[in-house]
Structures are given as structure tokens and as C-alpha cells.
């Protein structure tokens, strides 16, 4: 897909997430008002008060869940704004993992991000870097059995010229691992070239996976 087409998709999606949040804001305020009337208003003797408060609590929790989902989707949409930008990879990985949680849950796999204590700022294509990480995680979900976890750990390469992201699957049944070649991630060649991204297979006793090397890049 061309940069302009990606930017268009991002703009439409970001606009929809704003509208979605307006809907959630109305639900939050309306249910909040009912809760207020039951707690600080005149309706303390309302016969089903406790039941209503419980249901209103559930609505508020689900609104928050919707807000979190919309926020991550919004971040994803804004990753398409610019074809090249400075991004902080701890943050990018956090948002990307949220979007993949549903797929992992279906396979009963936990996704765990081990953030680096340092800021990992690189100049890259914000959308395609998310795509590369997502495809690596997807392939680990697809090529092995249920259960276990996928640990994502970013860090600076020695010398600071690039960030290395290890994506490692562990805990799935051993017979389903079978070794995963680096090209199994299915990241298209033009994406690898565009990002100057390298992917290596990782196969150690702790589990299989990939290491992505993302150059620091220049603005």
C-alpha cells in the first residue's frame, strides 16, 4: 500500500475513534448522573438502589474498557500520519500489544512486554514497524500450540546504532515448536528494505522466536 493510501486510512480511523469516544463520554456522563442521583441526590430510599448501583458500576467499567480500546486504536491510526517519524519503541510496543491481545487470548497465550528502562527513540516508519512486530507475534501464535507466553523485550544494541527487539515464545508444547525460520514471520521484503529492518531467528532453550534489529535512523 502507498503512503498516501495508508495516511487516508489512518485519518478515517482516527476520526471514527474520536466519534466513538464522544459516544462513550455521553454514556459515562449519563450513567454517572444516575449514580449521582442515587448517592448524593434525594433517591437514597429508592427500592432497587443497590441493584441499580451495581449495574451502573458495570456500565462504567465497560465504558472504561471501550475508552482503552479506542485509545489504542486511535494511536494505531495516528501511526499512519507520517511515513517517517521519531517514535519511542517502549510506547509503540505497548500499544501494539494491546491491539493483539484478543488474538493471543484465543490461543490462551499471554503477551508480556518487558520495557527497557531507557528511552528507545528511533526514526522509522511508525506504521510499518508496528506491522513487522505484529507479523512476528502472529507467526508465533500460528505456528505453535496453545498456552505459554510471548515475551517482547526491546533494548539498545551495543554501540547504540539500533534497537533490538526479541520476541520469544515459551511454554507451548515442545512438539509444536519445531524451529521457526526468520522468514516465517512473513514480513514483506519491501517493508524490510524500507525500514532497513533485519529479522533473525531466535532458538534457545528458553523458547523460539525472532530478534528484530531496527536502526536508530535519522530524522
Amino acid at each position, binding site marked *: 500500500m502507498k503512503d498516501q493510501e495508508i495516511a487516508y486510512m489512518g485519518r478515517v480511523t482516527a476520526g471514527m475513534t474520536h466519534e466513538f469516544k464522544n459516544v462513550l463520554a455521553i454514556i459515562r456522563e449519563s450513567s454517572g448522573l444516575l449514580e*449521582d442521583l442515587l448517592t*448524593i441526590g434525594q433517591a437514597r430510599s429508592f427500592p432497587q438502589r443497590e441493584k441499580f448501583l451495581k449495574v451502573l458500576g458495570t456500565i462504567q467499567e465497560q465504558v472504561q474498557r471501550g475508552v482503552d480500546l479506542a485509545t489504542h486504536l486511535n494511536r494505531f491510526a495516528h501511526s499512519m500520519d507520517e511515513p517517517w517519524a521519531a517514535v519511542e519503541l517502549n510506547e509503540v510496543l505497548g500499544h501494539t500489544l494491546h491491539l493483539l491481545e484478543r488474538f493471543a487470548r484465543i490461543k490462551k497465550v499471554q503477551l508480556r512486554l518487558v520495557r527497557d528502562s531507557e528511552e528507545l527513540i528511533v526514526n522509522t516508519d511508525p506504521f510499518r514497524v508496528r506491522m513487522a512486530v505484529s507479523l512476528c507475534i502472529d507467526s508465533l501464535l500460528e505456528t505453535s500450540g496453545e498456552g505459554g507466553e510471548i515475551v517482547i523485550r526491546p533494548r539498545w544494541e551495543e554501540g547504540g546504532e539500533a534497537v533490538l527487539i526479541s520476541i520469544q515464545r515459551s511454554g507451548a508444547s515442545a512438539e509444536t515448536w519445531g524451529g521457526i525460520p526468520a522468514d516465517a514471520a512473513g514480513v514483506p521484503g519491501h517493508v524490510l528494505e524500507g525500514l532497513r529492518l533485519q529479522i533473525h531467528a531466535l532458538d534457545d532453550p528458553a523458547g523460539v522466536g525472532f530478534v528484530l534489529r531496527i536502526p536508530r535512523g535519522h530524522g
Partner: protein
Amino acid sequence: MKRMKVLLVDDEEEFVHTLAERLQLRGIDALGVTKGEEALESLEADPPEVVVLDVLMPGIGGLEVLRRIKGRHPEIQVILLTGRGSEKDGMEGMRLGAFDYLMKPLNIEELIKKMREALGQDR
């Protein structure tokens, strides 16, 4: 203690009127309007201490309303409402004189805390 006087401006009618009612239940004198033009008229007739202003509105947008408020009534504190991912608008608003910005959907207690801070009542 004197009631805080607040003007809420957001084009989502249900949102702005419900929020006004919730603030009134907490002892705050809140009025909700749905257009920038209406907000400017209202504050000429009866100036509030704080304006809570949505950035994205049809007609006169939030940042333009902010500019006009600060031009005529620099003493009025303005808190902007933005969507997540639109922090740039919030930062621009602060450059134009807004006290701060909050993300929608709001947490009402956080909003009240922010309004008190804007009026120096947080201590």
C-alpha cells in the same frame, strides 16, 4: 463558600447538559452551551470564572473561541477538552492561554480538581 461559576461548551448536547447537571449536584453553578458563538454571547452577558471548552466543534472552533475569550476576558480560566491522540491541540491551547487540557471522556472528579487548581482553590 461562594459557588464556582462554570460555562461548559461542547457540541454534544447530551454530554454538555448531563455534565452541567452533575456539576450542579456537586454545588457548582454550571451552564452548558453547544456552540462557540453561544458561548461568547453567554460570557458577555454573565461572565463565568471557568470555561470548559471542547476543541473540535463546528462553526467557531474551540481554539478560536479561546483566542477571543483571552482577548476580551484574560481573567477567565479556560480548560480545554481534547480527544486522546490530539495532544497537539491541547498544547497549542496552552500556548494561547488555556490553563490546561483534559482528555474526553472525562473523569468528573478530575475536572473539578482541575477547575479548582485554575482558580487557585486547590490549597
